[in-house]
């Protein structure tokens, strides 16, 4: 067993186990964290195939953005794991059926094609890392579509803000640091002379 195979089996095991854990653990936050682990392990396996761009994207986009958002939602919704599990037995037969069909389809593909006809993808070419190649293509041959895609994202932001921003609420309380630092003692402290009680007690004491 070569070192690469060892690493592959290590990450595959972690991937399979964490995927199983995602659907078996009771706590929704743990499930989300196991999903992060599963994504991370599959990114590592991709790395073994020398497709580092996909691996990095998986970590950045799924682990970094999607799962963080997911965790936020899970934490905010305060999910009741008992209620989520209610229909488990009822849905089980259909779930097993779907799983069997999917497994059967996979088997079918492998059998008819033969495992030897599904070769490893070619590794890194001599031209350089695929991130660099992709970047070069995007910024030269596909510059124009790439820029338009960026404009579409900008429109998405503008549209989302236009549809949700209601303008500043007049009752909103906010701090204005420049006013805070330029305040003077006279604005805040009011010296009140209280002749009544203070002077009287002084007189009494004397």
């Amino acid at each position, binding site marked *: 067993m070569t070192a690469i195979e060892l690493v592959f089996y290590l990450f595959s095991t972690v991937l399979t186990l964490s995927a199983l854990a995602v659907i078996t653990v009771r706590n929704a936050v743990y499930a989300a964290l196991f999903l992060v682990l599963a994504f991370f392990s599959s990114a590592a396996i991709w790395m073994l195939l020398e497709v580092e761009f996909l691996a990095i994207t998986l970590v950045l986009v799924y682990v970094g953005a999607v799962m963080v958002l997911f965790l936020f939602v899970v934490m905010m919704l305060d999910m009741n794991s008992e209620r989520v599990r209610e229909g488990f037995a009822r849905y089980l037969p259909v779930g097993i059926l779907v799983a069997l069909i999917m497994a059967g389809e996979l088997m079918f593909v492998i059998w008819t094609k033969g495992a030897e006809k599904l070769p490893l993808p070619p590794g890194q070419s001599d031209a350089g890392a695929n991130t660099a190649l992709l970047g070069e293509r995007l910024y030269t041959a*596909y510059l124009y579509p790439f820029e338009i895609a960026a404009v579409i994202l900008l429109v998405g932001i503008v549209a989302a803000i*236009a549809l949700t921003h209601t303008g500043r609420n007049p009752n909103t309380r906010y701090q204005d640091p420049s006013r805070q630092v330029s305040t003077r003692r006279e604005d805040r402290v009011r010296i009140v002379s209280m002749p009544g009680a203070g002077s009287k007690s002084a007189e009494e004491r004397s």
Partner: protein
Amino acid sequence: MTAADLMLALPEIFVLGMTCIIMLFGLWLPEERQGMISFVSIMTLVFAAIILLGWDDPDPAAVSFAFNATFVRDQMADVLKLSAFIVLAAILVYARQYLRVFKVAMLEYHVLSLFLLLGVMVLISAASMLTVYLGLELIALPSYALVALRRDDQRSTEAAMKYFVLGSLASGLLLYGLSMIYGVTGTLSLAQVANITAMGNNTVLVLGLIFVVIGIAFKLGVVPFHMWVPDVYHGAPAAVTALIGSLPKLAVFAMAIRLLSDGLGNMQMHWMSMLVVLATLSIVVGNLVAIAQSNLKRMLAYSTIGHMGFMLLGLLTGSDQGFSAAMFYAIVYAIMAAGAFGVMILLSQHGVEAEHLDDYKGLSKRSPWLALMMLMLMFSMAGVPVFAGFFAKWLVIQAVIDAGMIWLAILAVIFSVIGAFYYLRVVKLMYFDAPDKDDAISVPADFRAALTLNGSAQLLLGIFANILIGLCVASF
């Protein structure tokens, strides 16, 4: 990419840059100076037009590709872009007072319409399936947001939701078709798709073509893919309806030419029969259902469906004559639609949308000028001779007859006569009915100038139709 590539796309780059500048500086403008946004936006269009025209080409018939053949600039692109600038400038003039009265966000409206214009320009100049799709999305996204811009209004949010769901479905179908064509040909460039399809047809290619035609039909809003048109036109604020009812039609016409003629021209026998069905159904359904409408916005929506059917008549012939007739139709239609909605926008100045036909009763007594403009627009839409709409219909029908489809031409003539009824009903209401109300109509000077130009353009484009027809003919 070279400097020459950038020069070719200079109008697009200028519009994008100005949109970003307007977006940033508009944020700092105080409430009472928001009118500046409108002024700067219109100036942007004027300068974009100057840049577009200033690009001197030794040979006007030349076709120049740029950015690795994802962008194309030819005479058709230039004429359509110029028409888009003119139409948008008119709509922005119309919209200013409306936006203020209805408290629609001035800045967002202008920025989103300029982005929509950018999408129109990208789609018109698309030379690859990638840019076709991106241009279409750049039109669609601002449209959805614009329709929902009055989000406290239940009707407009409902319309936006319908538009969004059906529009996404259409984009998905188109993308599905494009991916099949890509799968067969292995190239995104439409010119190369044309080379590869010349070698023979393939079943998957036909399947892809079906989805592409459905995508185009959805975006044009022709029967049976027209369900969204009346609801969206009705629900959207009038200033937005004017926008989505005119500009995208120019772009989708260009998209149909790029995909069906430039890319899949060799499969004409397949798409021709599909377009015949779409065009026939649209002309029949659009003109018949419009008669039953009592709401002007819905009536104009069904009339759009009918008009788009007529435009398809020109496209389906597959001849250069038919294409140029369809192009003339698209441009004339965009100008007519902008004007008709402009009148509606002006009458909505008291905070209530003037969308019922009864609102137009006795308009000639309240404002003879406005009634005259509406009269010219309605006559043009109906296809009364001398007006531009007549020549548009005439050219299209002539192309259909030359293509040997006499029955289709007869059907088109019959239904354009039936359609004339509901346009003339508006004229009758304006001139021969007593007004329900007699509140004054105040017209800002720039609005008056723009609408006068827009209305009389129907007459001038009719009398001097040869100029625009010449430009359209030279495009193919």
